[in-house]
């Protein structure tokens, strides 16, 4: 299982828990599972070309993925994934 931490406002909008557990092998799998549970959530997190939105920071087991990382990034079982709003805005 993978533990996913969602940004609090995203969780709020979708009436989701801010920490969810999913069965997946990649970020794409995580988004797929999130979208099943919370329809539409995947498109809030990633662009149609499969890249995370530019102002999101994604950490997998403590490692920050590059900005706009592709969701094909593998995620090992037992990982903790943090999806955070990046330092942006004004």
């Amino acid at each position, binding site marked *: 299982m993978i533990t996913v931490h969602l*940004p609090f*406002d*995203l969780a709020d*909008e*979708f009436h989701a828990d801010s920490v969810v557990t999913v069965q997946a092998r990649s970020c794409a799998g995580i988004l797929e599972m999130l979208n099943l549970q919370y*329809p*539409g*959530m995947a*498109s*809030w*997190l990633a*662009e*149609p*070309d*499969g890249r995370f*939105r530019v*102002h*999101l920071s994604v950490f997998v087991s403590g490692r920050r993925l590059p900005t706009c990382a592709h969701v094909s990034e593998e995620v090992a079982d037992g990982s903790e994934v943090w999806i955070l*709003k*990046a330092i*942006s*805005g004004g």
Partner: protein
Amino acid sequence: MEVSKSSGRIDTTRRVKGCGSVYLLVGTAKGLFRFKTDHREEWRALEPVLLGDPVYTSAFDPKTGTIYAGVNSEFYGPSIRRSLDWGETWDTGGSGLQYDAEDPERVTRVWSIRWVGEKTLYAGVEASGLFRSTDGGDTWTEVRALRQHPTHETWGPGYGGKCLHTIAIDPFLPHRLYIACSSGGIYRSDDEGEHWQPINQGIQAEFMPEDQQFPESGQCVHKFWLSPTLEGRIWLQNHGGVYRSDDGGDHWVSVGAQLPSDFGFPIVGHPLDPERAYVLPLQRWPRWSPDHALAVYRTRDGGRQWESLQRGLPQAFTGILRDAFTGDGREPLGLYFGTTSGAVYGSMDEGENWRLLAEHLPRIYSVVAVEEE
């Protein structure tokens, strides 16, 4: 209302004056601000909603009481969200509001939402494109023929982005659809979006070289307004120039020469009198009112003459964006606009007198008046 086919005018004599509450939906850089009035005397501010996100536009479906808001989150992207309780609560929007993965363009913002009837809506987006929903916004599908038009390559981004900002359905010819994008120009479809033609002949593109200022497309049309009472009448505020068409955009007449500046963003027509229109002239740069005197200009004779309406409006270093000016459709007509410095002004007497309805809001992108039945 009834359409008289012989004259091309809609009979408005039996139009009922509004008697319900009026809501003003003010879309800003940091959320949607709502104001409500019963008799247009006292305005009450409701709790702002959709906080933190830019709200570029909103729309209302009077049949279901649904408010639609174009929310352009910098973090989570664009969405068209819906509320069934006057904005108190919102869903997360429908699906499909994006271009294909292999498309070189992306949908980055929602600029325009037009409710057509029953469950059909259109949405204009950045990068300029048009979407349609036939299920009340649950799912969206691109109207592909528009971006497939050969002139698409002439479209480009203006200062605000490459956006499709205006959508109108012809009240006399329901299959006829108009859109405008900046830059790109105004286009018309006579078959609900299957085929399109640019209708920019006579509209100047002043930012082009001198010998190329009247191209087929590529103009920076800032806003247009389709008359609901006179067939073919369109008012258009261009990036330089105010125009009127009497034949559905086949020809345009320049009518802005008498204004202190023919540059501006919004234009609003009178819902009952097709000869009347209102603009908010701005200096070309910076985008402020000429001489810093905030003023609405009105024509009552099809654009031949314009008069300044500024009673109650201040001196200000501020501008008005393309969707931040609207009317409420009541008699006498109420007019409302919001400024880039966060003030909302209203007139309940067709622009003769203005008063401040709200101030110190974030930058205002859109003002929409909605009437509760």
